[in-house]
């Protein structure tokens, strides 16, 4: 399984943080030990991170570090996503630009515009919106994706899920699996996109709080 990784150097270039900051956050356990992935490269051993997760986390820390001490932040970050007690209404999601208003109109039934959504519900919206904005889905597919997530994501509970979006001969379909499942396809299948709930949650957490 080859996750999308980012090297430490790229991470520093992309986010503008320094080695000192990175090591400080590691010491304060703002960045979990498991995210430091050692790999050998032709220049010796290098450290890599899961790209989507670390970028989300760094953004989150940078936004918050002026308001909270690093210790307080560490406490917050270690809470599992499901305990993240955020309830936002659809209109708040729109205002804060977490989910684009086009997607909100499509998926958010207007009659519930003022009802608070749970983190999981927001995550499903966010997932559909994310793939749409990357241009990997069309509207019909996004509808199906959203329905699939609504129906099956709760069954995965704490462990989270991974979603595979594949196409073959012009027919597209979704598959959900436990994280880390190594799925294999026949040759004609093109894996368009792969999403994990953990990555999404990390990005979403940063935007919500």
């Amino acid at each position, binding site marked *: 399984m080859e996750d999308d990784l980012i090297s430490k*150097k790229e991470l520093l*270039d992309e986010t503008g943080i*320094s*080695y*000192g900051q*990175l*090591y*400080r956050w*590691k*010491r304060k356990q703002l960045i979990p030990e498991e995210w430091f992935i050692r790999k050998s490269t032709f*220049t*010796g*051993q290098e450290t890599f991170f899961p790209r989507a997760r670390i970028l989300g986390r760094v953004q989150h820390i940078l936004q918050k570090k002026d308001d909270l001490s690093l210790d307080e932040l560490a406490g917050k970050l270690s809470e599992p996503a499901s305990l993240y007690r955020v309830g936002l209404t659809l209109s708040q999601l729109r205002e804060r630009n977490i989910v684009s208003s086009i997607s909100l109109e499509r998926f958010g039934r207007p009659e519930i515009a003022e009802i608070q959504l749970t983190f999981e519900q927001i995550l499903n919206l966010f997932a559909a919106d994310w793939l749409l904005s990357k241009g990997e889905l069309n509207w019909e597919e996004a509808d199906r994706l959203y329905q699939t997530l609504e129906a099956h994501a709760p069954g995965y509970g704490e462990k989270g899920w991974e979603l595979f979006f594949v196409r073959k001969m012009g027919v597209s379909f979704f598959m959900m699996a436990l994280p880390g499942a190594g799925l294999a396809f026949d040759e004609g299948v093109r894996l368009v996109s792969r999403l994990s709930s953990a990555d999404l949650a990390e990005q979403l957490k940063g935007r919500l709080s």
Partner: protein
Amino acid sequence: MNPAILRNDLKILGTSSSAGGTFKDVKVTGECTFTGDVDCLKLNQTGEVRVKGNLVVQQIKMTGECEVKGRVDAASLRGQGQLTAGGGLRIEDVKLTGGIKVTGDCEAEQLQLTGVIEVSGLLNAEKLDLALFGPCRADTVGGGSISIKRSRTGALLKPGQAKNMSFAARLIEGDQIELQHTQAQTVRGGSVIIGPGCGIDTVEYRDLLEIHKSSTVRNPVQLQR
């Protein structure tokens, strides 16, 4: 630390052993072996202490030797002597003359050491100040400001053995780095000052690189800002 637990003092003179436990102040003069975990507010030792489990403590004041099989967690460490941790070490503030040997990672906010250090994993400190007194090594060093120099008194006290007072690491990364007598594969940082006696394969720096004439850097690379 749970404030509800009743903490009592423990005082040991001479040679003894204890099962460990939760204490307020632990004072050892002589030799003591703790067969389990020790959790205390203050550890004041003169002589030898062995802990077969983990050590959690606020303040350590030591003269002598302290050997912990497991992990060490502390807020401050002061004194002279040798500290060994078998399962990682995290101390906020260290000021020690002597030696530190860690299997695992060694983490500190401030680490000021005159002596010898050996870390099998990552040596991670906001401010690292090493005065070398003998052969030191770590796999990786990371932090804010890193300064590794040869101890002046060491060089005077042990004439002719100065070449042993060196530091070896695979990788050193920090914002401000100042090195002397260091052998490393890769050094990466904002500003890097390479003092005398260093041999480094690759230095990647952003702002500044100075290399002493007696040192070799095979491959200096300036990164774009």
